[in-house]
Every structure is written in C-alpha cells, then in structure tokens.
C-alpha cells in the first residue's frame, strides 16, 4: 500500500517538477516585463521531444549515453526513496536505513556523473568541454556539500540524543525536526540551510552556475549531441534534480507537520516551489553566467570555508 502511494507521489512530483520549470519561466518573463510562456510550457516541451526522430552522429557512443540515462533515472528514484514523503501521520520514508543520508548525497553526485558520462559519450568537442566543466563544478561544490551532510548528521544526533548508530540517517533528522518544530530553530542547522541554499544553483545546474551547459558558448555542453526521446529524458532529469533538491531542503529543514494528508502534500508542493524559486529563478533573473574558474573559486572559498566552520562548530 505504502509503495503504491509512494509511486503515485513521485509521479505527481515529476509533473510538479515540470510545472515548476514553467512557473520559473513565467516569473522571469514577468520580471523582464513580458508575458512569457504559459506555465505548463515545460510539459509541452517534454512531450514534444518524444515526437522527434533524428540522425545520430557516427562518432557518438549511444550505449554510454543510454546507460548514463538509466543510471540517472535510477539515481533520482533512489534519492526520492530515502527522502520523507508526506502522509497523514506526518512524514514517512519508503526506504530507511542507518546511513541513508549518505545514500542521498551519493545519489546527487551520481546524477552529476550522469551528465559527465553523457558528455563523454557524445564525443563532440562541445560535449567533451561540457563534461570537463561539469567535473570541475562537481569537485568544487561536492566538498562543501559532503561536509554539510556530515555536520547535519552529527548535529541531529547531538540534539536528539539518539545512539551513534543513527548518525547520518534521515530518521534522526526527522526526529530532531519533530523535537524542534522546524530545524531552522537551531542556529547551526540554520547556517547549514543557508549554505545549502547558496550551493543550490551549482547542484541543480542553474544560472549563474550552468557553466557546463552554456548554450551560447558551447552549444548546450554535454547535451549537444542528444535529440528526440533521449533529450527528453535528460530534460526530465534536470527538472527532477531541481525538484528533489528543493524538496529535500523543504521537507528536512522546514515543513511544518499537520495531521491531514492534503495539507502535508500541499505544503510539500508549495514549499518545494518556494525553495526552487529562491535557488533557481531569482539567480537566473538577476545574474549572468560565471566563468568556470570564478564558479569554482566562489564555491571553494565561500561555502567551502563556511561548511568547514559549521562542521567544526558541530564537533565542539
């Protein structure tokens, strides 16, 4: 029963991810003083890509790309399966084990590696440059991200007084949340939340850190050789990545607990939209794209040092 409910929930979340992409385009359009596309535009784009039939370049390694896309979908499902999902009695997880926080972080790194694989599979100069830029970005934001995950694990055990085995488990975080009301009441968790928000654009690959897929310089980077249904899967994967990250930030740190399923579902959807607007729409509307060295330096010096500091604070 619970798995059926969960499947329905991730389907809903996927449609919501596409809608969030459209709402994002609508908001940016209104900020620039135009009407913009209808807010379901990204659903239309997604469906359209499955109608297209094109020729594949002879140098392209299709096997690598297909395997990468399957891994990407699997990683997205994995990340969503350890995240809490809204039920009548509060949040529950489909899969829960000690160490599932690490699984979550790993699934995110895997999704970035999928882009790298697609880039190397494309074998055109543009996709190769896109892939190498993705690796540089991954190295610069993954270090602060992992440090923050470790800090979250320690802090949750410290607050709840659970045994050390439950360090790095989502359930410890949820227990800490139900103890505090919302994790933002704790100053260290508040700091972690803010740094994770700053990491957001790089993790989900949105402007100003969409350096690996700069469409005006390197013709869409790693995805340049994809078309038709494969491009559609990549398009969906990008949306799922954005919604998963926003959903993680909202569900683990903020979402208030109520007794009704409907309210919990609404809060999850609207909350993830809010976080997605903060980490995707606003940077996109106010800023241009960075160079790769600026991006890497920014993440290693800003969030990198901040996350180190937060980790030290949780340990003392």
């Amino acid at each position: 029963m619970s798995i059926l409910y969960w499947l329905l929930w991730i389907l809903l979340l996927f449609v919501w991810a596409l809608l969030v992409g459209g709402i994002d385009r609508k908001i940016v359009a209104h900020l620039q003083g135009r009407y913009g596309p209808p807010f379901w535009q990204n659903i239309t784009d997604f469906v359209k890509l499955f109608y297209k039939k094109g020729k594949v370049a002879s140098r392209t390694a299709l096997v690598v790309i297909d395997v990468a896309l399957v891994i990407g979908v699997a990683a997205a499902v994995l990340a969503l399966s350890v995240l809490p999902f809204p039920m009548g009695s509060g949040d529950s997880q489909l899969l829960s084990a000690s160490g599932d926080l690490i699984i979550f972080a790993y699934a995110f790194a895997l999704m970035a590696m999928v882009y790298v694989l697609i880039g190397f599979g494309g074998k055109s100069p543009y996709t190769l440059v896109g892939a190498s830029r993705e690796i540089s970005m991954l190295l610069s934001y993954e270090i602060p991200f992992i440090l923050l995950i470790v800090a979250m694990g320690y802090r949750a055990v410290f607050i709840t007084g659970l045994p050390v085995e439950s360090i790095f488990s989502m359930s410890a975080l949820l227990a800490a949340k139900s103890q505090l009301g919302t994790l933002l009441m704790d100053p260290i968790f508040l700091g972690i939340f803010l740094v994770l928000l700053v990491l957001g654009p790089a993790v989900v690959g949105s402007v100003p850190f969409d350096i690996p897929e700069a469409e005006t310089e390197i013709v869409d980077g790693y995805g340049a050789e994809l078309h038709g249904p494969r491009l559609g899967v990549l398009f969906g994967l990008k949306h799922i990545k954005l919604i998963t990250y926003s959903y993680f930030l909202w569900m683990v740190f903020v979402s208030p607990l109520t007794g009704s399923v409907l309210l919990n579902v609404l809060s999850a959807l609207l909350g993830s939209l809010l976080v997605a607007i903060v980490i995707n729409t606003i940077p996109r509307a106010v800023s241009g794209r960075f160079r790769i060295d600026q991006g890497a330096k920014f993440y290693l010096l800003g969030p990198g040092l901040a996350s180190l500091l937060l980790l030290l604070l949780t340990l003392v």
Partner: protein
Amino acid sequence: MSIFKPEKSLWIYHLNTGSCNGCDIEILAALTPKYDAERFGVKLVGSPRHADIIVATGPVTAVAKESVLRVIDQVPEPKAIVVTGVCGITGGVFRGGYSIAGPLDTLVPVDVYVFGCPPKPEGIMVGILKAAEVLELKRKGMYQKDVVRISETGGVL
C-alpha cells in the same frame, strides 16, 4: 489539448549562411521583451539537434554550403525551415556573385519565406508561427509542399 500539442513548443535554431548581419539582428529583436517570442513557446537553442525550426539568413556562400547542409541534416524530423530576408530567398544583392552557392531553396526544401531586407521582427514572428502550422501538417502526414510567403511586416502574401 494544447498542453500536449507538440507545435506549442517551438525551439528555433538561428542559422547564418553568410548574411550581412541585418536579418540576424532582427531575429534577435524578435526574441527581446518587446516582441516576447517566448509567449508562443519559442526558445532559441544552441544545438541544431535540439531544434524544431531553422531560421536561416543569408544567400549561402560557397564556403558555408557544406556546413549549412550538415547542420540542416542534423535537425530531427519533423522540421521546418524559415528563410528570412530577400538574399536568402533569391540571392538579393549578392545574386550571381562568384562566391554564392545558394539561394537556400536550390539546396534544400524551404517551408516559409519572410520577405524584406531586413524583415521586421513582426514578420519573423509570423514566419515562425506559420512554420508551426507546417510542422503540424508534417506530423499529421498532410503536408502539401507549398511555400508560405510572408511580407516584411507580417502579412501573408
């Protein structure tokens, strides 16, 4: 339902085959907030493999011919080709020049002509929307191979 209609999502690829840059500026003007092409689902993409519609300018120079044909070949079906500017349609002032291999319709079938030197952004917008109709006919298998002619201000000729 129009949500699931593929012709409501038009990804365009801007192909310069050797134009004087006048038409290219007008294409970019059609994408600016004043004309707001995005409200019809138009998005400028960087790779021809992502495109639905090619918006081509220029008379196709001999040097560019090979690359132009390869780029057009890379666009997945169903696709539509819009030629903007007189020199893409007939060769214009460059017609008969020693370095000209075009115009484009002698090399590949073209679906929409937008006249003008350069056409106004309104004309280019109408051209793109007519190309969407062509795409729909192609998807339904009812395509008649007629070329649509658009005046520089957007009237159908």
